[in-house]
């Protein structure tokens, strides 16, 4: 019976390993630096993934720039300022719910609020704002955990020498929890890179030609391509795409996401073993 449970656990874990290897195996023929640096050509049936890759980088960085300050300070509020009031309860509930809202509803929200109401139009900016709100709970939750791990005695010592609340946070709490906060930010990056639905109607398009190899090819109010959307396009919308090309796109996307997650996990493990208190 114990082994039955072990088998069940392994049945959950094994698919991941098999899938990753299978995808790599199928993608192997196209994986090269050229694949990353060339644009899709011939109706996306040949070439590389430069335009979608660059689009994803833009979306991730911009959404991070928006979500990071708001998320970190929201966590500071929840952990350092908020008492046991109905307000705190409401904020906590809101964070839980924000994490549970379906991604397609985020897409509708982004379309209604940023693209149409705010008049930004379908653009990298609108898509990044949508992504930022969608990934906010990830940053809030992990930052909160990192802040809660700083012992109260650190804060008390600081208050006792006359520092204000903010000075304590700025000079004691934040520096001591920086690696934990970093973990959350890395997870946000991996989450934002993989999302498709929220960016689909807010700024990402099927195809856009840009200069290959030029990292500043997109403007803030341009529409862009994205890796996740590109994978959707080449695997369902365009007929007769050569197999290695679709598998290659999947592997690059999966690779980026798993790499960032592995990084976050490594930081966490290192952190746990090096803890001073």
């Amino acid at each position, binding site marked *: 019976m114990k082994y*039955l*449970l*072990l088998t*069940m*656990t392994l*049945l*959950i*874990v094994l*698919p*991941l390993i098999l899938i990753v290897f299978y995808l790599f195996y199928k993608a192997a023929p196209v994986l090269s630096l050229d694949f990353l640096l060339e644009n899709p050509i011939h109706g996306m049936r040949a070439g590389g993934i430069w335009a979608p890759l660059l689009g994803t980088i833009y979306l991730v960085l911009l959404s991070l720039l928006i979500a990071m*300050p*708001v998320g970190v*300070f*929201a966590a*500071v509020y*929840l952990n350092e*300022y908020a008492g046991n009031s109905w307000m705190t309860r409401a*904020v906590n*509930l*809101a964070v*839980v*719910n*924000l994490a*549970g*809202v*379906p*991604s*397609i*509803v*985020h*897409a*509708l*929200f982004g*379309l*209604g*609020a940023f693209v*149409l*109401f705010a008049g930004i139009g379908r653009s990298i900016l609108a898509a990044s704002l949508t992504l930022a*709100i969608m990934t906010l709970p990830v940053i809030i939750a992990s930052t909160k955990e990192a802040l809660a791990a700083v012992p109260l005695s650190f804060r008390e010592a600081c208050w006792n020498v006359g520092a*204000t*609340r*903010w000075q304590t946070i700025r000079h004691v709490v934040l520096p001591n929890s920086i690696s934990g906060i970093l973990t959350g930010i890395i997870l946000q990056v991996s*989450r934002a890179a993989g*999302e*498709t*639905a929220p960016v*689909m109607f807010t700024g990402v398009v099927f195809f856009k030609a840009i200069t290959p190899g030029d990292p500043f090819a997109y403007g803030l109010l341009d529409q862009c391509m994205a890796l*996740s959307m590109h*994978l*959707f396009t080449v*695997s*369902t919308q365009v007929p007769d795409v050569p197999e290695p090309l*679709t598998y290659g796109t*999947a592997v690059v*996307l999966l690779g980026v*996401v*798993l790499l960032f*997650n*592995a990084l976050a*996990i490594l930081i966490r493990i290192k952190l746990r073993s090096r803890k001073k208190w």
Partner: protein
Amino acid sequence: MKPQRQALESLKEWVIERFIWLCGVSAVLFVFGIFIFVFREGADYLFRGFKAGEFFTSIEWYPTSRTHVRYGALALIVGTFSVSLLAMVIAVPFGIGAAIFLSEFCPPRLKETLKIVIELLAAIPSVVWGFIGLTIMNSMLVRLFNAPLGLNMLNGAIILALMSVPIIVSIGEDALKAVPDSYREASLALGCTRWQMIFRVLLPAARNGLLAAVLLGVGRAVGETMAVLMATGHSIRIPHSVLEPVRTLTATIAAELGEAPVHSDHYQVLFIIGILLFTITFVINITADLIVRGIRKEP
């Protein structure tokens, strides 16, 4: 310290504290914002021509018909719930089984590794899952069950199960860990076998947490978009077997929003579906949260 400088410092402190407060409540604002803006886009049609009776009871979804436009979403609602239900039938036993294994039997080193792999499993983007369903899983199922060629519900449900299993395992394991060791010791001391202890003591004691884990899994499955869009076959009908294709609420929005002209009736009906989805997941999340909080309060 000069009084001026002190005044400046306390002003700075005040400004920063206001800013932190604003960020804190922003989460609440965003949740309201999502509801308001999605509602706003669909409201006009909701109060003007929306036929709730047709929407919930008819399976005739013909949003672009020239002669007689019909918005019957029953098949989509049934599609969403049948595929989520099937996913849970697969995911719950595996998820709870794995949670029991991790919390009761697993040696610590193996546990660390397994938890990392399960975390990575949760990180795979939904579009990649959809792609896996489309390519690897589907051909496997067609061969295995002799199913008619093409995508089907089982395909989507297995993918959804793999996507929601990590959340069930991690919340379920927390729930089992929260059961005090004294419960385990007491039942073992009374001569229970380990299995009697698990089934008669541990699972009943952790039932609320396990229920919350399952609910969050359901929430994940109902809200999932890209994977079901790509892997369930996308045909509007009430399924009679698990090997038939279905279409879900989320997939319908994703597939049709691009083609519906802004502010047309069709476009607004898609936003009404959005309101429905938001409400469903909102209720699921609040319930799960209340249950989890209830557990924490019990000593």
